[in-house]
Every structure is written in structure tokens, then in C-alpha cells.
């Protein structure tokens, strides 16, 4: 049997288990959907919560990113996806990578970062672009 690619391993991790069991910080996830728990930021420092959204040209995949930020950094970032598993994997990786980072650093995440981390093929690169577009859309709503 051929090796399971990194993006599929990520998709198949417990919180996205096809058995349907939810685990960890993700409360509700499956193969075409990953929904975050309510953000639980540290008290007294939260300044904004925004939602970003992106879809593919044929709108057969949609990604929403939910951000809670303080003055300089992303406190917590979660996602919801309707679409192929590779999009779920990309959004999930991005949330993990961006949470806790400064907003500037999050802006610096690139498609290559996801492509490398998840071993995406050229045909799957759209998943990275979709997740990053949703993040960019969310960040663009911040008045910082």
C-alpha cells in the first residue's frame, strides 16, 4: 500500500476521524467540515473577533476562518470548511500555525508553507490558497 500523504494524515487525525468522534479543541468535525470550539481568549486583552471567508471559483468549496485577536497577535483561530478533505487539512494546519503568532507573522504565511508542510500536489495547492484567502479576508477586516 502506498504511503499516506501528509495532508491526508492530518485530515485523518482524531478530531476529523471518519468514525465521527470529536476530540481535542475541535468540537465538531468531519470529512467535509471542521468547526471550531467557541474562542476562549485570555480575559481583558481581547480586542476583536472577525470572520473571513473564501471560496473556489466554482464555489464547490468554502472556507471560513474565525479570528480572535488582541492588539498584536492572534489569540485563537478556528475554521469551518465545506469541501474536499484537502481543504479541511489546509485550514486546520493554518489555524495551528497562526494561533499565537503576531498578525504580521500570520500575514507572512505563504502557499509554499502549506504545500511543504502537508506535501500537497500541484493539483491540491488550491486548498492552501483557499485557506490563506479566508485568513487574508479575516485580517483585512481588522482596523490595525
Amino acid at each position, binding site marked *: 500500500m502506498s504511503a499516506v500523504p501528509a495532508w491526508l494524515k492530518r485530515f485523518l487525525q482524531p478530531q476529523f476521524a471518519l468514525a465521527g468522534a470529536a476530540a481535542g479543541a475541535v468540537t465538531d468535525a468531519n470529512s*467535509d467540515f471542521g468547526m471550531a470550539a467557541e474562542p476562549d481568549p485570555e480575559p481583558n486583552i481581547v480586542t476583536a473577533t472577525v470572520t473571513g471567508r473564501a471560496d473556489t471559483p466554482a464555489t464547490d468549496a468554502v472556507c471560513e476562518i474565525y479570528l480572535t485577536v488582541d492588539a498584536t497577535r492572534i489569540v485563537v483561530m478556528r475554521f469551518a470548511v465545506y469541501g474536499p478533505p484537502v481543504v479541511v487539512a489546509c485550514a486546520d494546519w493554518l489555524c495551528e500555525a497562526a494561533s499565537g503568532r503576531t498578525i504580521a507573522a500570520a500575514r507572512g504565511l505563504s502557499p509554499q508553507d502549506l504545500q511543504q508542510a502537508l506535501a500537497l500536489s500541484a493539483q491540491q495547492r488550491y486548498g492552501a490558497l483557499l485557506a490563506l484567502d479566508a485568513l487574508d479576508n479575516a485580517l483585512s477586516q481588522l482596523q490595525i
Partner: protein
Amino acid sequence: MSSVPKTLTEAPAENSGAGIYLDHAATTPVRPAVIEYMADVMNTCGANPSSGHQPGQAAAARIDQAAHNLAALINAPVKGIVWTSGATEATNLALKGVAEFHGGGHIIGVVSEHRATLDTLTWLERRGTRVTRLGVDAHGHIDLAALAAAIVSDTCCVSIMHVNNETGVIQDVAAIGALCAERNIVLHVDAAQSLGKLAIDVDAMHIDLLSVSAHKMGGPQGAGALYVRPRVGLVAQIHGGGQQHNRRSGTLPVQQIAGFGRACELALGERETTHTQVCGLRERLWQGLAGIDGIVRNGAAQGAAHILNVSFPAVHGAALLTGLTRGTPALAVSSGSACSAARAESSYVLRAMGRSPQLAAAALRLSLGRQTTSADVDAAAARVVAEVARLRALAPSTLVQPA
């Protein structure tokens, strides 16, 4: 010799049992009788069929036999058979060959064709051939009046697929052929999905060029053919060696072609029985799925017997596919065409039929074969029902409309 497994033996590691193969529109298992015949050819015919010596002529005789078998299946003259590597090459030869013969000109295709046709037409368009792409109705059929209206003075070819590879929709090739014959226009038909399954008579249907493939009907991958009606102008696209009367150069793969011929021979004798059997199983499968809330059948019940294409609103086809290909029993199915998946788009065939992008993305193609059983169909239906219910229960209400 080991027999061809009916079910997948190399299921994903997560599975405890074997799977069910319902992807015959992508490829069919090679029939045991074909494997035996190919093995015999490889054991006894090791020479180049173009060679004049006795071993070479023995190999050539196997190819002649295969040509007779294929010709009998489509009611064509044997000398019209040009062997290729598959239907894609055959289609390339047909369209590029005709366009070059006519110095460009105008070709009419259909938006729901296989990529082998669509991409070849685009390639020709970039080189000066004018292309008209006809639309289809909600059932996937073209409008004959629209075809007639699209014909202009320098239209040199009409290209259409007999059976759509995603939906199983059958075009009225006989009526299209009659129109083309009346206007003296070459008709190319992609019959990759219909050879051995539906009756094809190139004479009665006025077909001038017919692309076929071995691996869609129990033969080996890597073999196909283009039927070329005598006196149809066609310029060769592969040069070197002059084999096949200069129509397609290259040493012929004897065992592949022989296997193709054997599959044709078997299909000719069993076609009607198999059609009845597979048609019954497809309807049994449909009945097993029809209770799913909001399910949409893409393509009419009168379509090709081996294909059932359905959409499940609020369930993404790729997600459904991932779920079905894992678990027990694993299903080997398709979410439409692999080409669409690679381009990160929902099915262009379904969108051409008026389905929304979301519904097109929610499609699942289940394609049956002569080895499919009632138990396979029942188990597959149960898995699909359960997986759709599970995904819908978890679907995000913010992004997905309920079924």
C-alpha cells in the same frame, strides 16, 4: 494462473475486509479468459508482427484475428481498424487528422465530452480550427436542431460521445449520423463507454470514425482503436515505420491487441445478457439510495446500464468519496471525473446539464460491471446511506443549506 478478483484485495490499511469495486466506468478488471489468451500470445508470439518470417506472421495473425473480432462487434470492414494505445489517442488521431486533412475548417463538439475530445478541440482551436461546442439539456442530450443550425459551409467534422462517462447519458448517434451523412460531414464518435455494452453498427449509424478502448470492456489497458471508414480523409499523427498503412506508425503490441480482440469476441456473445443483468443491478442500487433525502439522479434511467450518477445536497462528493473508500466494506467509486477533481472544480458535465456548482460537487458515480452482484449492490447502498447521513449530521449550517 490466478483469477481476477471480484473485489479489491488491497483495501486501505484501516479496513478489516475487502472492498466492493464500483468504478467500471474508469476501468474494468481484465477478464480471466482474456488474461489466459494474452498469456498464450506472449508465450507463443514473441516476434514483430511486421516481420515477414514465420514467427512474425504468427504474431500478425493474432492481430488479424483481433481486427476481425472488433470489426464484427461494430459491423465494420476489417481494413478500417487502426490500432492505438487507447481511446484518447484514437480521438486525437481522429480530430487532428481530419482537421489537418481539411486545412483547419470548422468542427462541432459538445460541452459534455470527455477531456480527450475537449482538450484536443482546444488544441486545434489555438492552431486555427474553428470550434463550436454545443450545449446539452437537463438530461444531457444535445438538440438535433441546434446541431443542424451549427453546421456551416466548411464544417468538416462533428464529434460526439455515444455514452457519457460521468452520467451514462446516451446520445442518439443514429439520428446525428443521418444528419451528418446528409450534409456530407465526417462523424466521429467516442464509444469508449459503449463498446461491448450497447449495439454499435457503424454502417447503420453512419459513423465515419469511432474511438474505442480495451480496458473499458474487460480488455487490457494500453490498447484501443480508431475505426476509419474507407475514403475518409485523415492525416497520420504518429510517424516512423509506416505500420498500419502509414495511418499510425509504431510496432504493434501483439498481446494487448490480441487481448482486446478476445474481449470483443466475448462481448459480442454476451452483450445482451450482460446488459439485462447490469441494468437490473443498477436499478436495485438506485432503489437502495432513492430514499435519501434530496437525492438527485443525474442522467435518465434510460441511460447506459452500467452507470448511476447521483448527487446528495449538503454533502461534498470528495468528502463522501474519502469516507466511502475507507471503512468496511470499502467502496471503489468515483466522485465524477478525475479530471474535474484535479482542476479543483465540480463536474463540468453536470454543470453543463444545469446543475448548480454545489450539486455538481455533491455527485457520486457508481459504475457496475458484469462481476457485480446483488450483495455488492446492497452493501454499497447501505454504506452510502449511512455515510451521507453521518456527514449531513455534522455539516456546518453556516456554510451548507440543508438537503
